[in-house]
C-alpha cells in the first residue's frame, strides 16, 4: 500500500551538517577581542573625569563576567556552524497551524535599511510618516479582509493578541459597570491554549467546551455554558482538524444575547481568506498572525505580531496608540480615555508589519483569494494520498466533507501495530530532509497526532516528496521498527534524554549551572564538558 508513494519519488540521501560545535563558553583565549570600543578622548576625560570616578564606588564591578574571549571571525564562525546545525525550513516544512510561507527577501532587505531599523519610536510623528502610512494602509487591508473597523499591532504574537482581547474585554465590561460580575470566558478544547491561558492570566474563569460527534462542540453545550457571567467567547474556526463549525453565527448570537463579546482567533485563516469575514459572522473582534498568514518570518518564535482588530464599538478600549490619518498626514493618537492601556511598550514590531504589508501588496486581492484556494486544494490532495499510507488515520473519519487548509491525522494504528508513534516518525522524517511536523496542541484529542499544512508556497512536487517520506517511514516502521524508534540517524545529534529536564538537581539552564551540577564528575570542570563524540 505505502510503496506506491515512495516508489515514484526519489528520496534524498540527506545528512545534516554536524560540526561537533562546543558551547561558546568553552571557546576563546583570555585577551582576545571581538569588538573594541574607542577610549573616551582627552577632552571628555578632562571635563567628565576618569571612568572609574563616575561609577558609584559601592556598585563598581571588580570581577569581570566570565564571557568567552574570541576574535570577531571566531564568533562569526561559531554561530554560522550553529545555523548550519539547524534544519530551519531550508527544505520542506509543513508545520501545521503555523502556516509556513515564503518570507520574501525583498521585504527583509527593505526592513533592514535605516529608514526602518534606525528609527526611534518616540520620534516626532512628522519624521515617521512612511511607517505610519504603512501601518494605516495595512490596517485598511485587514479591515477589508475582516470587516472590522480598527486594527492595532502592539501585541508581540498571537498569544499576546489573545491577551489584548482580554484587556479590551475587561475595559469594555468595566465601562458598563459589569466587570466584577462578568468573569467567565468560554472557549473550546480545540482553540489554541493561549486563549484559555491569557483569559486566566487576565483574571477570568475559563469554561472549555469539548468536541462532540460533528467534530465541534454542540450548540446545546454552548447554551449551557452561557450566562449573565459570560464576558466573552474566544473561538477559532475552522479548527486545527480542518473542520468548520457551521453554527458559528448562531453561537455569536447566543453569546451576544447574554451580553458577552465574541473574539475570532483567526489562527486558521489561510483556508478562508477572502471567503468569509469575521464581521459578517457577527464577531466583535478578531486576530491575525502576521508571522503566519501574512508572510512575515517566524524567527524561530518571534519577533511576531498579533494584529488585533475590532468593531467601532470596541475601538475606544484598544491599547494606545492608534494610527490616525488626518488629511494627508498620519499621527499616533494617545488620547483615548477609555483605552485598556498597553500590552507592550511602543506600538508593535514595525518591521514585521512592513513585511506583512509587502505580502499584502504582492499578493493583492486576487492572489489572496487564490492562495486560500490553493491551500485548501493542496490539503485535500494530501488527504487523498495520505489516506493510502499504512498506519495513518484521519481524525473524525466519519466526517465525509472536505477539510479546509489542514487536517489532523493520527498514527494511532501504526502505534498499535508497530509501537512506533508520532515523535519517532517526526524524528525519522527529518533524516530525509524535511523539518519535523507539528503534532498537536495539548490535549491530544486523537492518539499520536500530526498536523501537516500545505499552504500555498509548496509545489505539488514538494508535497509529493513529503508524502513519499512519510510513506517510506511507514514502511520502515512496519519492517524495522527499531530503525524508526532510534531515529534520528542523519542529524547532528541523537535523541536527547529527558531525565535532566525535570530534575532540579540536574537541569542546567546556563553553563554556570551546568558546571556547578555536572562539572565535578571527572577531572576539571572545563574538561568534563561533554562534546559531540565522533562515532
Amino acid at each position: 500500500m505505502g510503496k506506491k508513494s515512495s516508489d515514484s519519488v526519489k528520496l534524498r540521501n540527506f545528512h545534516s551538517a554536524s560540526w561537533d560545535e562546543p558551547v561558546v563558553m568553552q571557546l576563546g583565549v583570555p585577551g582576545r577581542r571581538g569588538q573594541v570600543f574607542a577610549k573616551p578622548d582627552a577632552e571628555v576625560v578632562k571635563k567628565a573625569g576618569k571612568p572609574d570616578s563616575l561609577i558609584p564606588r559601592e556598585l563598581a564591578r571588580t570581577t569581570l563576567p566570565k564571557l568567552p574571549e574570541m576574535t570577531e571571525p571566531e564568533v562569526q564562525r561559531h554561530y554560522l556552524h550553529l545555523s548550519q546545525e539547524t534544519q530551519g525550513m531550508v527544505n520542506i516544512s509543513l508545520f501545521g497551524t503555523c502556516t509556513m510561507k515564503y518570507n520574501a527577501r525583498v521585504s527583509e532587505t527593505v526592513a533592514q535599511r535605516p529608514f526602518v531599523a534606525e528609527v526611534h519610536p518616540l520620534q516626532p510623528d512628522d519624521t515617521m510618516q512612511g511607517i505610519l502610512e504603512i501601518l494605516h494602509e495595512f490596517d485598511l487591508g485587514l479591515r477589508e479582509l475582516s470587516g472590522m473597523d480598527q486594527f492595532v499591532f502592539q501585541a508581540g504574537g498571537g498569544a499576546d493578541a489573545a491577551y489584548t482581547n482580554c484587556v479590551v474585554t475587561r475595559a469594555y465590561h468595566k465601562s458598563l459597570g459589569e466587570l466584577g460580575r462578568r468573569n467567565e470566558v468560554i472557549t473550546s478544547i480545540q482553540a489554541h491554549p493561549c486563549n484559555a491561558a491569557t483569559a486566566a492570566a487576565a483574571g477570568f474563569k475559563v469554561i472549555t467546551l469539548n468536541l462532540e460527534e460533528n467534530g465541534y462542540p454542540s450548540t446545546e453545550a454552548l447554551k449551557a455554558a452561557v450566562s449573565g457571567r459570560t464576558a466573552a467567547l474566544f473561538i477559532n474556526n475552522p479548527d486545527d482538524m480542518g473542520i468548520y463549525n457551521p453554527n458559528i453565527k448562531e453561537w455569536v448570537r447566543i453569546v451576544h444575547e447574554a451580553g458577552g463579546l465574541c473574539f475570532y482567533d483567526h489562527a486558521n485563516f489561510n483556508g478562508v481568506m477572502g471567503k468569509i469575514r469575521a464581521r459578517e459572522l457577527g464577531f466583535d473582534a478578531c486576530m491575525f498572525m502576521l508571522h503566519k498568514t501574512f508572510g512575515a518570518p517566524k524567527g524561530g518564535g518571534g519577533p511576531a505580531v498579533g494584529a488585533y482588530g475590532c468593531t467601532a464599538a470596541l475601538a475606544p478600549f484598544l491599547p494606545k496608540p492608534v494610527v490616525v490619518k488626518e488629511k494627508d498626514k498620519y499621527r499616533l493618537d494617545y488620547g483615548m480615555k477609555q483605552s485598556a492601556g498597553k500590552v507592550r511598550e511602543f506600538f508593535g514590531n514595525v518591521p514585521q508589519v512592513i513585511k506583512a504589508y509587502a505580502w499584502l501588496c504582492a499578493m493583492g486581492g486576487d492572489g489572496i483569494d487564490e492562495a486560500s484556494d490553493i491551500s485548501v486544494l493542496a490539503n485535500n490532495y494530501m488527504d487523498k494520498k495520505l489516506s493510502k499510507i499504512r498506519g495513518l488515520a484521519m481524525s473524525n473519519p466519519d466526517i465525509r466533507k472536505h477539510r479546509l487548509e489542514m487536517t489532523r491525522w493520527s498514527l494511532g494504528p501504526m502505534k498499535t501495530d508497530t509501537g512506533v508513534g508520532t515523535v519517532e516518525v517526526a524524528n525519522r522524517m527529518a533524516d530525509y530532509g524535511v523539518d519535523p511536523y507539528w503534532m498537536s496542541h495539548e490535549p491530544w484529542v486523537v492518539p499520536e497526532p500530526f498536523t501537516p499544512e500545505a499552504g500555498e508556497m509548496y509545489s505539488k512536487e514538494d508535497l509529493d516528496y513529503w508524502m513519499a517520506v512519510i510513506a517510506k517511514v511507514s514502511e520502515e516502521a512496519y519492517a524495522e521498527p527499531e530503525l524508526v524508534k532510534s531515529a534520528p540517524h542523519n542529524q547532528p545529534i541523537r535523541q536527547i534524554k529527558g531525565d535532566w529536564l525535570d530534575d532540579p538537581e540536574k537541569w542546567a539552564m546556563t553553563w554556570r549551572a551546568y558546571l556547578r551540577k555536572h562539572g565535578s564528575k571527572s577531572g576539571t570542570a572545563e574538561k568534563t564538558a561533554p562534546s559531540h563524540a565522533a562515532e
Partner: protein
Amino acid sequence: MTANESGAHPWMGNSLASVKQAMLDEIGVATIEELFEQIPKEHRLKAKLKLPPGIKSEASLRRHLTSILSKNEDCEENLNFLGAGCWQHHVPAVVDEIVGRTEFLTPVWGSPQSDLGRNQAWFEYASQLGELLNMDVVSLPVYSWGCAIGHAIRMASRMTDRHEVIIADIFDPERLSVVENYCEPVDMPDHISIVRVKTANGLIDLADLKKKVTAKTAAVYFETPSYLGLFETNAAAIAATARHFGAETIVGVDPLTLGIVRPPADFGADIVVGPTQPLGVHMNCGGGVGGFIASRDEARYVREYNGFLVSITETARAGEFGFGLASAHQTSYGMREKGKDWTGNSVYLWAIANAVYMSLLGPQGFKELGELIISQSHFAAKRLGEIAGVSIPFKTGFFKEFVVDFTKTGKTVAEINAALRKQKIFGGKDLSAEIPALGQSALYCVTEVHTSEDIERLAAGIEKAVM
C-alpha cells in the same frame, strides 16, 4: 501559454492551472469551490475583496515600499538623543549577518535534534546573560521589559500568595501601563495593587519604603539605572527591607551596565529583569524590544516561570550533549488556563542576536563599552549644564540617560526640541507633562554612538535654541 501569461505567482508553486487540475483529478472533484462545502453559503463573502491586484514584480514592489518609507527620517541622518525604553547602540555587523541566516530567520520550531544549533544558541544566550547577571537561571526572552516586570511580579505574587507590589513614584509610563495590565484591575480576584514609594533625589526613599513594605507585600520592584538614568545606590538596603517582610526583590537592570557595575544579585535581588534590545538589536521603531527574566536556580522560582527554559542535557550517544525544555509542563502549552500565565511566540530571534553580541564583546568589551558610555554621558551632561539657564538636576550617578532642565531658559522642551529638529537633532524625551515637578525637563540619552563632536553640536544647537 508561458508561465507568466498564466499568471503564475512567484511565491505560489501551485498557481499553474495544469497543476491545480492534476490535484483536482487526484481528489476526484471538478472545481476547487466544491472543497469549501463545509462553509454554509450564507457565511460566504459575496463580493470579491476590494484590494488592489497583486504586485508580482519584485522590482515594482521594492520601489513601492521604498518610496513610502523614504518619507521617514532616521537616527543616522539625524543626531538622536531619545532613549526611554528603546536606545540607539552600535549593532555589530556579524550580529546582522547571523540573524539574517535563513535557518534562524524563517523556521518555527523543529526538534531538539533537527534544530540543535538554534537551541544551542538559545542556551548560549541564557549562559552569557547568566554570567553578566551572576544568576543561574535565565528563560528565553518575553515580549518586552515591561512584560518581564509583569511576569516577575506575578511570579512573586504566586510564590508569596500576596497581592501588593511596590514601585517607585517616578517610573516609565510605557512600562507602567503594561505592568498595570499584568497586575489586573481591582475587579479581578487576583488583582495585585501597585503601591508607589517616594523617591528622593531620584532614588528610592528608604524611610518611605519602610512605611510601605508590610507583610502584605509580594515584591519590591526597582530599577538600576532608574527611568531617569540613575544607579540605585541603596539597592542592598532595599532588598534587605523587602526580605525582612518576606517579600521578593525584583530588580530591572540595563545589561550594558554590567561590565562596570555589580549585578543586582550581588545586592540581594531574587528575580532580575531587563531589556534585551541594547544587546545588539536595532531600535526598529520600537520593534526591537524584548525582556529577560532571571533568577537563582531554586525550584520554587523555576516552577513559576511562564516561558521556555532551555537546559543542556545528555543524548542517547555517550558524551554528546543536546538541549531540551526544562520544567516544560508548567507552560500554557501543556496546561492551558492552569499554566503559569501564558507563553507563545516572543522575540526568540533577538535572543540569538543577544548571544552573538555578548560573544563579540566578551568581558573586556562590556567593560570598555560601559566606561565609554558613562564618560560620554557625563561629558554631555557637564557640557549642557554650562549653557545659561540649563541645569542638570542629578549631576552624578547615572549611566547613559540623564535629566536636562530647561526651565530657567524660559523655553519649553517642546520649543527647544522643535528648534533642534531644524538642525537635524532629535532632542531628549519631553518629561514636562509626565513629571511636572521637574519643570521643563527632558530625558537625554548618550551612548557609544555619540562622539564628543556630536555633543558639541548638540550644545551649540541648544545654545541657539534658548537664545
